[in-house]
């Protein structure tokens, strides 16, 4: 199955490990994620003022690229656009909803982009987790050759996968999609009441202390519930929950660092894929000691 794929900027740099692991995992599942042949930054946040259209130009431009992918035969009559980053997902999806609901806005945006072909409003933005769910967690289970026996993982959703309701990939208050995935990988799912609490998002450039306080709450609640690792799907959440552990440690000396994974990294490990796909060099808290202790890496480096 070939599907158009939108990586987003950070997946090409600081979150390359998210992309590398996801592409490898997708291949294993028989999904070919075809990167849009030309794409631009989506803007990362959906513009919330009613009169502002210019900030929707960026996401809509990317949706036009999906039409082009179909025209050029790079995908076959498949107007889905798969994203990995939660923020890209949210921004693209909400912009798509807005222009579908407001044809006048779409017309203005199309007129403004007169050098592009018109966006016809027929693209469907989806998150990779939704694609996995469609394939079925049974299929995931079948592919697991390196089960996470006994590893305790707390899923973290943050905001952009769940809210607002019209874009959420799951119930905004009781999401289970990551739980099902982690369970399918053979790990123990730890429920963390803070899994839907915001990590502070872009506040990280305004006041990193505010963000590290939130991150501290989220991580320690997970730890108190028994978690040994966190799973998530957003490079900004990852930065705030992983890299900001530096600031947390400076403030709370008794804090013990906890590895933070992209869910696709966990899948790559579970599927027993080559360790080159894990990309732990980009994780701030090195997960290798934990994985070694659980005998999950360093055994077979085949396939």
């Amino acid at each position, binding site marked *: 199955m070939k599907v158009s794929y939108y990586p*987003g*900027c*950070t997946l090409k*740099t*600081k*979150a390359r490990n998210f992309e590398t692991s996801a592409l490898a995992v997708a291949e294993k599942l028989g999904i070919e994620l075809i990167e849009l042949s030309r794409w631009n*930054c989506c*803007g*990362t*946040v959906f*513009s*919330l*003022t*009613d*009169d*502002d259209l210019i*900030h929707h130009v960026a996401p809509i431009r990317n949706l036009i690229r999906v039409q082009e992918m179909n025209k050029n035969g790079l995908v076959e009559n498949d107007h889905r656009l798969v994203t990995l*980053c939660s*923020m890209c997902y949210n921004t693209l999806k909400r912009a798509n909803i807005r222009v579908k609901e407001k044809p006048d806005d779409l017309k203005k945006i199309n007129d403004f982009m007169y050098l592009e072909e018109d966006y016809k409003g027929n693209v469907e933005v989806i998150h990779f987790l939704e694609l996995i769910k469609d394939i079925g967690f049974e299929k995931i289970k079948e592919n697991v050759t390196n089960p996470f026996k006994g590893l305790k993982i707390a899923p973290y959703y943050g*905001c952009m996968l*769940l*809210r*607002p*309701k019209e874009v959420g990939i799951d119930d*905004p*208050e009781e999401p289970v999609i990551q739980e099902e995935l982690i369970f399918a990988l053979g790990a123990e799912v730890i429920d963390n009441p803070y899994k*839907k*609490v*915001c990590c*502070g*998002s*872009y*506040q*990280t*450039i*305004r006041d*990193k202390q*505010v963000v590290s*306080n*939130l991150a501290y709450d989220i991580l320690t609640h997970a730890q108190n519930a028994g978690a040994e690792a966190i799973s998530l799907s957003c*490079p*900004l959440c990852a*930065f705030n929950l992983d*890299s900001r552990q530096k600031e947390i440690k400076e403030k709370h000396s008794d804090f013990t660092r906890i590895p933070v994974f992209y869910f696709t990294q966990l899948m790559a490990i579970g599927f027993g894929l080559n360790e080159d796909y894990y990309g732990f060099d980009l994780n701030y808290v090195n997960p290798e000691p934990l994985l070694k202790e659980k005998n999950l890496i360093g055994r077979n480096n085949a396939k």
Partner: protein
Amino acid sequence: MIKKLKLSDKNVDFLKKIEELSGEVITRCDQCGICSASCPMVSEMDITPSQLMRMVQLGESEVMESKAMWLCASCFTCTVRCPRGLDLSKVAEALRQVELRQAIDHIDVKKLSKDEMKRLPQIALISGMRKFTG
């Protein structure tokens, strides 16, 4: 006993402006406080989200001096929980935009330390500058 509030023209203008920018009927808020109870940032704020809503309802432009609107992380927790179906994140954005659209930046990224500039992923810079610069 029903007490009727009468807003001054100036206050009506401010309320109208925020309603227009946000697309929300702010007068529908009945101050239940669920937003404040749900907000992950509330402990850092000087006024709570429901107080912010109240001030806008009354057209009090002093709300522009509060820290609250800048602390909103657009997490949409209040949005999904508001029993009146209001989207407070849009109200906060409208308030921020009133200032940003006058070309007043709320942050100066040039003041971030070298170390921060090395660490920050693009996603943080892009989202932050969208929300805090005009």
